[in-house]
């Protein structure tokens, strides 16, 4: 989808006043956070596991060319095809060409964030191919024509009622008198409709949770089993994955799988964890005749170069957004593109461009919860701060902020003057605010005081208090 990250502020404001969304976001907190904590606490050395995960990814990224070539050779050995896509356009063309050659009428799709990133659905629809998302959450938002609002629970913002209405409209042309109400009824209805699609699809498209250089395999992690029906039933299987998804060996894949399910859904293992290698073998009686993997760059090699390489360790678990106070308040759509929350605030500017995503790196309180739960220890708050710095360097910071910072910097470089002014200011504010102990309004800080009161300072500066205390301790 086209990025709408430039509309972050109005979208966030709207989200804060949407009661359905607020209810759904409360579910995220109650569900994912508690479940993750439970399984992580009972794992003997989860910290050690995170460190190992970090090292595996760092090593792989530092040798990415070697592992990509090894992966490619192994896919060829297994009888599969490898395609390289530098950009969104290239990825779209590769996939639509494969579908055209396969004479595809119906394509089933397992959830793929890389596919969302390059707008595969739009490209396939434009090529006249019926494209059906099969992950239940993805299917729901496809019916609603909405982007995902969470990377592992894409329809988390939808209520049961809204889903029921969507099914009635799309499956029954709005004619259903007794609308489906209960969760089992809704799931069963989708199962029935999508089963027909699975059985008649010509091409199945999936993502990959990781790629293994040693064997030329990809791993698919699902709970519904839709990924397996997507790659096992059609004549052709196409997988699309970012080049950073590699790990060297099967043992390294095991480490990543141990981190992923626990961090994402709070499970020790998802219902289905599948390793796919190439197309069907000669004696096999089912499985696709062709296997294609599309290796996607789309800005990743640029990240590899500079200070944002660490972001390429991301295994797309969603833990950072589940633990983010900003995401928890506004949900995923306000971020305006396919990746929300802390990881999205770093990735979106790097892929889409700093100029169109000005608010994202600033929509962060730098509280550090995301970093403390990230299974591969990505220092998300540091990266966000680095992005703010780049914005400043590229003159993308709003003019009022730049002026404010410039004025502050001028004084900060003159410590005596700075101290004298600070003393005077703090003293005055302390005296004026003494009676109430707080300010309801402050000139020049209306944005801050609109939502909360400003406590009156204690009439002396921190530096003065510090000097005094040090003197007393001597």
């Amino acid at each position: 989808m086209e990025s709408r990250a430039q509309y972050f502020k109005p979208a966030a404001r709207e989200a804060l006043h949407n009661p359905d969304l607020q209810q759904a976001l409360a579910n995220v907190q109650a569900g994912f956070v508690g479940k993750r904590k439970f399984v992580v606490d009972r794992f003997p050395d989860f910290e050690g596991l995170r460190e190992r995960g970090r090292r595996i990814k760092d090593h792989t990224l530092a040798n990415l060319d070697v592992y990509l070539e090894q992966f490619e050779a192994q896919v060829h050995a297994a009888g599969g095809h490898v395609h390289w896509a530098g950009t969104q356009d290239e990825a779209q063309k590769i996939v639509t060409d494969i579908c055209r050659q396969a004479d595809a009428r119906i394509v089933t799709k397992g959830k793929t964030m890389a596919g969302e990133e390059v707008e595969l659905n739009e490209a396939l629809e434009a090529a006249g191919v019926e494209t059906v998302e099969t992950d239940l959450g993805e299917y729901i938002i496809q019916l609603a024509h909405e982007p995902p609002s969470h990377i592992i629970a894409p329809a988390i913002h939808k209520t049961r009622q809204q889903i029921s209405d969507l099914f009635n409209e799309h499956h029954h042309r709005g004619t259903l008198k007794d609308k489906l109400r209960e969760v089992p009824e809704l799931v069963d209805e989708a199962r029935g409709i999508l089963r027909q699609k699975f059985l008649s699809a010509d091409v199945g498209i999936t993502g990959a949770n990781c790629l293994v250089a040693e064997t030329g395999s990809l791993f698919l992690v699902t709970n519904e089993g839709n990924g397996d029906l997507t790659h096992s039933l059609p004549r052709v299987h196409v997988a699309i994955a970012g080049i950073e998804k590699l790990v060297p060996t099967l043992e390294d894949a095991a480490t990543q799988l141990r981190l992923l399910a626990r961090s994402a859904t709070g499970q020790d293992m998802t219902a289905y964890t599948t390793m796919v290698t190439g197309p069907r073998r000669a004696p096999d009686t089912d499985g696709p005749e062709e296997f294609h993997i599309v290796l996607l760059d789309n800005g990743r090699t640029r990240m590899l170069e500079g200070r944002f390489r660490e972001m390429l360790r991301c295994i797309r678990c969603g833990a950072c957004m589940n633990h983010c106070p900003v995401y928890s308040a506004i949900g995923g759509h306000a971020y305006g593109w396919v990746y929300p929350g802390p990881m999205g605030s770093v990735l979106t500017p790097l892929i889409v461009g700093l100029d169109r995503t000005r608010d994202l790196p600033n929509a962060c309180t730098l509280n550090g919860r995301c970093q403390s739960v990230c299974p591969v220890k990505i220092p998300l708050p540091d990266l966000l701060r680095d992005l703010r710095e780049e914005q400043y360097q590229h003159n993308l910071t709003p003019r009022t902020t730049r002026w404010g910072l410039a004025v502050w910097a001028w004084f900060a470089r003159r410590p005596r003057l700075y101290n004298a002014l600070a003393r005077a200011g703090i003293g005055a504010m302390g005296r004026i605010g003494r009676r109430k102990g707080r300010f309801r309004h402050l000139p020049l800080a209306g944005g801050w005081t609109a939502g909360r009161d400003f406590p009156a300072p204690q009439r002396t500066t921190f530096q003065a208090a510090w000097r005094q205390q040090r003197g007393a301790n001597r």
Partner: protein
Amino acid sequence: MSDARERILGRIRTALGREGPPDAEATRSARQAAVGDGPSQRPEWQGDDLARFQQCLEAAAGTWVAVPSMAEVGRAVADYLAERPAGTAVHRAPDPALDAVDWPDHLTVETARDGRAALVGVSRALAGMAETGSLALASGPDNPATLAFLPDYHIIVLRTADVVPWFEDIWARMRQTDGFPPRSFNFITGPSRTADVEQTLQLGAHGPRSLHVVLVET
């Protein structure tokens, strides 16, 4: 698009500051140095692996029964189906290990090439993984992959001697096996499920609504 390949690899080499062609051997030892010699951190448990396997399987909403021999698997399957609206038609995998099963007469047993017509599927797992209660199945003519995903009731036969503790044991074993990796190597941990509607867990999303394991004591 081979020029895209060259472009991407070229950009990676520039980013990594590569001068000569990379050396696969050096990369292997660099991995060793980065990751260390020991195995990955992993779950630990008291007691035997089989008990851990059973416990984790149950926690994932799977059920199990133990029988003394392969012949007895037929009886166990019949008992399981008798308590459910699952009929009496069974699609079994062609796996020769299942040839020793004694099927009760009232079951109609068909050897399946895939799972398309199956309401009840019986497959064999190559291994059970105690750390998570998962079953490891290899696709191929003996165990078609779709037989594990299309039926409503999936029954998996596993020899207790094939239960191993961790992922690492599965890989060590499979690397010795001819034809590994197969097209699809599946770890199955309980029946299909979704929480996509209001975060409420519901079994039977797209795959089997129930998963039953028949453990053959060996």
